């Protein structure tokens, strides 16, 4: 369709043996389907991203997020299915796709030996800006990402945050129509994360379509117009962040007790819907969904006091990815895909 920046229909990609292990190594995940060395990274994935929007792809390690980005950015050939970026087929029109995309991968795609400016200039030339224009553009980007002072130093000496900013600058050398960001903030400290977020927000104003993968619901919440939740190589849910959160039950309250023996009493006593309360004895924790944050908080604190139950901590929080997954798939499979093999097909 004309207004789609990205169209993926029934995409499959299976890594076999050696190749699979290599790709997995890069993602740091285990083969999920139990068969030796063979891994279905994309298993009938469908996706449609409208132009000018930020689309979040949310999922745990090994869900197929990186494979999806690598297929979309022409680095990896899908086994089957239709994959179009900016209206061009990634297989038969790879060059046309490459002219229109920017890529920020999980690992810095930079020449570590060269300086920041040298990197940007080189990428500008490879985008055929011409020498002069490439230099001008490099200076602009260094300025914009606050890297002007370190432009001469080799990238090897950059901090994680600086490297990520330079990498982002490199993916913007030609103001791409579509930008792929593969877990752009993984491994960054909170400050680095905030920097990347503000950079992404400023891009969206310029009309760029952004596809962003992440393990963090909060990140999708902050940046994305729509979110697709991916698990085992297919999309299991999509919608706006608010829709997804409300489906997951919205905010939760966590109460940690001093004595695990009082958990039972607390469940009976607290003004929480008993059927939805989850109890974790090891962590002396009970957790429940709430609708009105402040009413729930004050109600719980009062009930604890009146009941003489000693609490260590009471906190309101957003649902975690774990809970989104638990809710959407019925299998508790948050940040780690390790125990996936034990769980039968859930959806």
């Amino acid at each position, binding site marked *: 369709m004309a207004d789609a920046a990205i169209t993926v229909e029934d995409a499959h990609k299976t890594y076999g043996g050696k190749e699979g292990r290599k790709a997995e190594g890069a993602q740091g995940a285990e083969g999920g389907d139990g068969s030796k060395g063979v891994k279905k990274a994309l298993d009938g994935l469908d996706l449609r991203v409208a132009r000018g929007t930020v689309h979040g792809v949310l999922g745990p390690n090994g869900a197929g997020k990186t494979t999806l980005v690598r297929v979309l950015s022409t680095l990896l050939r899908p086994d089957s299915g239709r994959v179009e970026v900016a209206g061009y087929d990634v297989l038969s029109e790879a060059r046309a796709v490459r*002219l229109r*995309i920017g890529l920020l991968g999980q690992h810095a*795609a930079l020449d570590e*030996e*060269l300086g920041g400016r040298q990197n940007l200039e*080189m990428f500008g030339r*490879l985008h055929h800006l011409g020498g002069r224009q490439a230099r001008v553009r490099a200076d602009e980007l260094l300025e914009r990402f606050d890297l002007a002072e370190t432009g001469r130093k080799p990238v090897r000496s950059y901090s994680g945050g600086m490297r990520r900013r330079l990498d982002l600058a*490199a993916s913007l050398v030609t103001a791409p129509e579509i930008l792929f960001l593969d877990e752009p903030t993984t491994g960054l400290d909170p400050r680095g994360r905030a920097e990347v977020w503000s950079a992404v927000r400023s891009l969206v104003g310029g009309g760029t379509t952004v596809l962003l993968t992440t393990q963090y619901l909060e990140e999708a919440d902050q940046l994305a117009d729509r979110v697709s939740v991916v698990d085992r190589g297919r999309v299991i849910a999509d919608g706006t962040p608010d829709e997804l959160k409300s489906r997951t039950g919205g905010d939760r309250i966590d109460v940690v007790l001093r004595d695990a023996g009082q958990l039972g009493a607390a469940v009976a006593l607290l003004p929480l819907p008993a059927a939805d309360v989850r109890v974790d004895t090891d962590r002396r924790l009970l957790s429940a969904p709430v609708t009105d944050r402040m009413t729930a908080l004050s109600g719980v604190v009062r009930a604890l006091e009146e009941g003489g139950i000693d609490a260590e901590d009471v906190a309101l929080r957003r649902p975690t990815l774990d809970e989104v997954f638990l809710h959407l798939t019925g299998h508790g499979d948050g940040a780690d895909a390790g125990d996936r093999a034990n769980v039968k097909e859930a959806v």
Partner: protein
Amino acid sequence: MSAYALTDSWTMTRRELAHWARQPVQVVVSLVFPVMLLLMFGYLIGGGRAVEGDYVDYLVPGMLALTMAFGLEGTMLAVTQDLNKGVIDRFRSMPMADGAVLVGRSAADMLQSTIGLVVLIGVGLGLGWRPHAGPGQFLGAVGLLLLFRFAMLWVGIQLALVAGRPEMVQAVQILVWPVGFLSNALATPAAMPGWLGVVVQWNPMSQTATAVRDLFGGPGGESGHVWAAVVWPVGLLVVFFPLAVRRFRGLGG
């Protein structure tokens, strides 16, 4: 092939040259190493090996050929390092000409080897080596050496693409020594046990060394080897060049 094949290849060559500028010590070491080998074999270890005439006249062309062969590991190391870096993903996701990464690599490596040859020839002359060759023969000899280096370059690229891991480079760096020494670079096959002499004579590097000695007019040269010194490298190129280019294009599995 894209219209930008030349520009892109040049950009990639410049990248390699920029690496040199960033790491001058590495460049100097790579140029000094063959000189050290030459001095070692000339004065410490060599000393004849049943060579008729002056050993230095036999040794220098041999060392030139050996240096070209050892270039293989440098190429392999550089390509392996590149492939294991994220930057290769950026190159592959950009609208640049397909072969530019490899062309840049080979242009830079050939330039480095040419400089290496000049340095080594200069040191050889300093040690008293005197080629008895006209300018045509001299250039012909240099051409054969560079052709051999070019073949080794693509063998190195292919090995790097197939093996792809730094540990494998280490293995090749070790193996290159016995393979390099199993040639007539340092000693004449006549001085070796019969079976070993046969192996040594079949080594493509021996063909280049013998032809170069012939063109330089020194001991150990045999006329008629120029063909072998052309056919072997060209044969290697016919096999390894397309393999490497196909392998590089197919990186996306």
